[in-house]
């Protein structure tokens, strides 16, 4: 088939390229002990990598996750080959791979991951230099199997045993009572023997009937309540078990993303951003999604929540919640799920944590405009006022990575523009190019993690995302298709999350600012106000 042939032809072409350009890669002959050399591939190119199959488990296997993470990094290009093809040529443990063959397939590197007792043993081979560059063990959380049937069985057995024990003890009591019932009168019966025997038989049957009747009634009484108690207990345990499994799956994915990020740093020298999440707003709720678009879930309840921002430790969010009488700042602990409202009246919007996470800067609005304030993240007053906008709007703060400066929006020159100031509110300067009298509209700034640029949105008829450098104030337009708004930097300073209508509905997309590649992150029409997390720790 043509479809099969195409990548192969491309691979062969690339293989030739890789082989012929190897000479300009690193000098691998002079390997010194203790010095790790990176992958030898032409600088400036995107190395092509083959990820070998890990196991035969169906579904979203480890290989799929790693391969996709490497693809989404835009620094490495995985060659998507059929796992069954690769199974035959994957090296056995302890053996070198067939470098010539992989070179012909177009690979500059091979990633091999194998399951071991604690997780994954991952190795990276340099095809050009014909050697293993790295090997490391990664702990990976494993998801326990579904235990619904086992839980039901054990609860049922337990209930049956308990019931039997109580029935036995009741039975013992009843037998004692029956024995008393059967006892002949103490006084000697003067009547003929046949009357005495008849009475004795009557007493026996009455006692037996009594035991039967009481046990029967007891069983009748117990049956429904026991069944109900069992069902409740089974349901509770099954729910807890499934939640634990969901959490484990969540952690398993995250630990594999960590593997991808590490492999990427072996290949390119720069850590990837797979182990991150993006918070965004949909339908009035804050949602969180993994960097690869999986594991999308709401973290706040119904309402109108807006403007999520991450704590630098990645475990907390701050956002604003709108009600009919005002808008409040709330903090959400992602581990416990508890949220805490910060006191304040009127309009409180666009909160962000300071670079050290100790303070929150937000915008408070009243009849005399909106201005930026800083308050301790533990909520203790007083709030310190940072801007004096004289009736204008001052909002959407974003900290420089060193925490010393804040970029924000101000309408003090009549139209919204991006300004910068020192974190204490002094030394304010206009950043975006402003021509007096010309209507402009620039909002939603986000300071890049390398500190060099600020991304923002600007109206040019419709709204598009732009970048401006802080040093020479040169601006560059990044988007053109559809409307693109609310940029948020990934921790690599290369990718941006933004809301875009390019696919029809408004969704969160990820833009690689270097290659211009776009990928859709969310599948919720109307998704907006994204915020990219910092690098997240291993679970």
């Amino acid at each position: 088939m043509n479809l099969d042939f195409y990548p192969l032809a491309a691979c062969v072409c690339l293989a030739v390229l890789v082989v012929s350009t190897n000479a300009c890669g690193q000098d691998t002959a002079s390997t010194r002990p203790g010095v790790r050399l990176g992958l030898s591939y032409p600088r400036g190119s995107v190395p092509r990598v083959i990820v070998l199959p890990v196991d035969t488990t169906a579904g979203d296997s480890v290989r799929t996750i790693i391969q996709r993470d490497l693809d989404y990094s835009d620094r490495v290009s995985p060659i998507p080959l059929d796992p069954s093809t690769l199974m035959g040529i994957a090296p056995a443990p302890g053996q070198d791979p067939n470098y010539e063959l992989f070179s012909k397939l177009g690979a500059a590197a091979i990633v091999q991951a194998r399951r071991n007792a604690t997780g994954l043993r991952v190795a990276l081979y340099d095809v050009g230099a014909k050697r293993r560059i790295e090997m490391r063990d990664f702990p990976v959380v494993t998801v326990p199997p579904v235990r619904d049937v086992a839980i039901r069985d054990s609860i049922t057995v337990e209930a049956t045993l308990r019931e039997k024990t109580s029935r036995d003890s009741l039975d013992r009591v009843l037998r004692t009572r029956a024995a008393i019932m059967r006892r002949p009168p103490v006084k000697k019966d003067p009547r003929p023997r046949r009357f005495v025997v008849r009475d004795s038989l009557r007493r026996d049957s009455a006692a037996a009937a009594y035991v039967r009747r009481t046990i029967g009634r007891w069983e009748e009484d117990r049956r429904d309540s026991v069944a109900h108690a069992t069902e409740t207990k089974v349901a509770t345990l099954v729910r807890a078990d499934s939640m634990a499994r969901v959490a484990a799956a969540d952690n398993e994915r995250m630990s594999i993303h960590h593997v991808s990020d590490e492999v990427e740093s072996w290949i390119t020298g720069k850590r990837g951003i797979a182990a991150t999440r993006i918070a965004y707003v949909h339908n009035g709720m804050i949602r969180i999604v993994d960097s690869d678009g999986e594991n999308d879930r709401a973290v706040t309840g119904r309402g109108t929540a807006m403007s999520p921002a991450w704590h630098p430790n990645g475990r907390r969010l701050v956002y604003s919640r709108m009600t009919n009488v005002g808008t409040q700042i709330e903090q959400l602990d992602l581990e416990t799920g508890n949220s805490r409202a910060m006191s304040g009246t009127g309009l409180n919007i666009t909160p962000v944590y300071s670079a050290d996470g100790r303070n929150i800067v937000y915008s408070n609005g009243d009849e005399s405009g909106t201005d930026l304030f800083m308050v301790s993240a533990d909520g203790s007053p007083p709030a310190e006022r940072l801007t004096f906008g004289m009736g204008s709007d001052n909002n959407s703060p974003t900290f420089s990575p060193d925490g010393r400066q804040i970029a924000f929006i101000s309408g003090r020159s009549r139209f919204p523009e991006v300004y910068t100031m020192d974190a204490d509110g002094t030394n304010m300067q206009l950043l975006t190019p402003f021509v007096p009298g010309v209507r402009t509209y620039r909002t939603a700034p986000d300071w890049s993690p390398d500190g060099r640029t600020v991304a923002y949105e600007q109206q040019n008829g419709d709204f598009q995302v732009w970048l401006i450098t802080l040093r020479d104030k040169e601006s560059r337009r990044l988007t053109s298709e559809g409307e693109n708004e609310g940029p948020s930097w990934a921790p690599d300073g290369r990718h941006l999350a933004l809301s875009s209508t390019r696919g029809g509905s408004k969704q969160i997309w990820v833009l690689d600012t270097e290659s211009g590649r776009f990928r859709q992150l969310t599948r919720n029409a109307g998704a907006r106000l994204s915020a990219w997390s910092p690098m997240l720790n291993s679970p």
Partner: protein
Amino acid sequence: MSILARTATVTVVFALILAGCHKKPSERPAPRRINADSLLREQARLDSIARADAARAAAAAAAEAAAKAGPPTAAPVSQVERAALAATIFFDLDESALTDEARTAVEAKAPVLLRHPNMRIRITGHTDSQGSDEYNLALGLRRAAETKRYLAALGVDEARMEIVTMGEERPAVQGNTQEAYALNRRCEFEIIEGG
């Protein structure tokens, strides 16, 4: 006064009038022109100020009369008054300044509020869905604040007016057309007490 001085004065006055002819902001920035339109608009603005002054004087007189007549009675709010009070006002793109139509509508609300001194209202500012959702919250607040200021200038006690913004979160009309945008750039009025 010499002819020269008089001519100079006339020129200065004319220049001032021209300078006062502030072009109403439109969707796209256009070169500034002085034309019949802007003169008419200026005239309309002056008329509206005059109307507002008249309304304020009338309201003040009414309030004085009411004060003389004794303590305010809780007169029932008529349907006409209710309609005048609830009428939504509309704004231009990224603007919180009241348009002439909006001024007229607000001027119709002031007497109602002055006639019913126990009445409290909530003014809710809204924006269209264009632009930053967050910036729009602030813009909505500015619209509500501007409206409140104008009502206060017409003699309504500020303490009787509460302002809230919904930004672009509660559109009156769905859709991404210019018509929908125009209908969503608005302030809504709601009686929260004494009505």
